[in-house]
């Protein structure tokens, strides 16, 4: 499929723009080897002014907008929101991109980077939240949809350890 997929293209665009980010959520599980399906990209970005400017420029250049808007006004993301603490559920082209300032209880980029693993991706290096921290995050979230994926994550963690 290569870069025909809009979500994969979006991820490569983020890397090309040198946005400092950590992939979390379902795509992180996929990258770590979990056989799960994911519909969107979840990232936690570093909230320094420079990094937010790089991210915002890319988002605006690609026409990103808030996809959760009942009035469907296609509102673009703002610098203030990206510097904040919330979740921005965006659409960028046909890709669904969730830009998360923090996950769990106030865990931002700096809190997560120690548990992130470098993964080679299209000639660049992607930081991906490791399986241990993913399991911790899913359990902390506590929703049924999070609990559902934990068994696969635990099995993947065990299989990865066995492989190494």
């Amino acid at each position, binding site marked *: *499929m*290569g870069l025909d*997929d809009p*979500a*994969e293209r979006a*991820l490569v665009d983020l890397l090309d723009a040198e946005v400092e980010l950590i992939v979390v959520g*379902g*795509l992180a599980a*996929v*990258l770590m*080897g*979990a*056989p*799960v*399906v*994911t*519909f969107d990209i979840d990232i936690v970005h570093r909230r320094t002014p420079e990094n937010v400017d790089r991210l915002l420029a890319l988002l605006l250049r690609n026409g990103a907008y808030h996809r959760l808007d009942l009035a469907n006004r296609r509102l673009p993301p703002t610098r203030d929101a990206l510097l904040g603490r919330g979740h921005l559920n965006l659409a960028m082209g046909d890709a669904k991109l969730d830009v998360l300032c923090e996950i769990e209880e106030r865990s931002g980029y700096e809190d997560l980077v120690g548990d992130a693993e470098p*993964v*080679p*991706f*299209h000639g660049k290096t*992607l930081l991906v939240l490791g399986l*241990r*921290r993913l*399991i*911790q995050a899913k*359990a902390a979230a506590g929703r049924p949809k999070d*609990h559902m994926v*934990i*068994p*696969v994550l*635990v*099995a*993947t*963690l*065990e*299989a*990865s350890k066995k*492989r190494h």
Partner: protein
Amino acid sequence: MPTDFASSNAAKKLRVDAFRRNISSHHKRILLFLFDQPRAALAAHRTSRRALHTQHDHRSSLRCLNHGPTTTTVSQHPLRSAILSRMGAPTYDAETLAAYFHPIRPETWDDPIVGPVLRRLAEEAPEVIEAVGDVDRSLIFEALTWTPEARVARALGMAAFIERTRESMGHGTR
């Protein structure tokens, strides 16, 4: 659940036998689910959780869930064969099955990050812990041989297929 099984003589016999044997609330929960009684199943589920909290400390809970010698677990209960027959039983020998389907490894319980999470789940959501034994590891072993790009392409490709199917069925996009 289809009503043919729930109303069958075999099902009635199972239900009567089960309650006569005074089986645990956890087993009752599964039976009630089989018999299309979700509300009662939920109540039994809550009862079984309370029982798990009060009857076992952390370690005995883990033994029960992971190693199973202290109490009768679902996997040991004769009703499991009835449940499995509803799901379709695998055709492989025990050794093969154990390589691909097994409970959480003892060393994972000792993991400094994951261990405490698992122990909490064993108390609060034991079904999550039990479900680890049902994960088909062959899918994971295969995925681990792929490059990260291939893993992403497969997952997103499957998601795109699901979305296309949803659209073709008139459910719109997610």
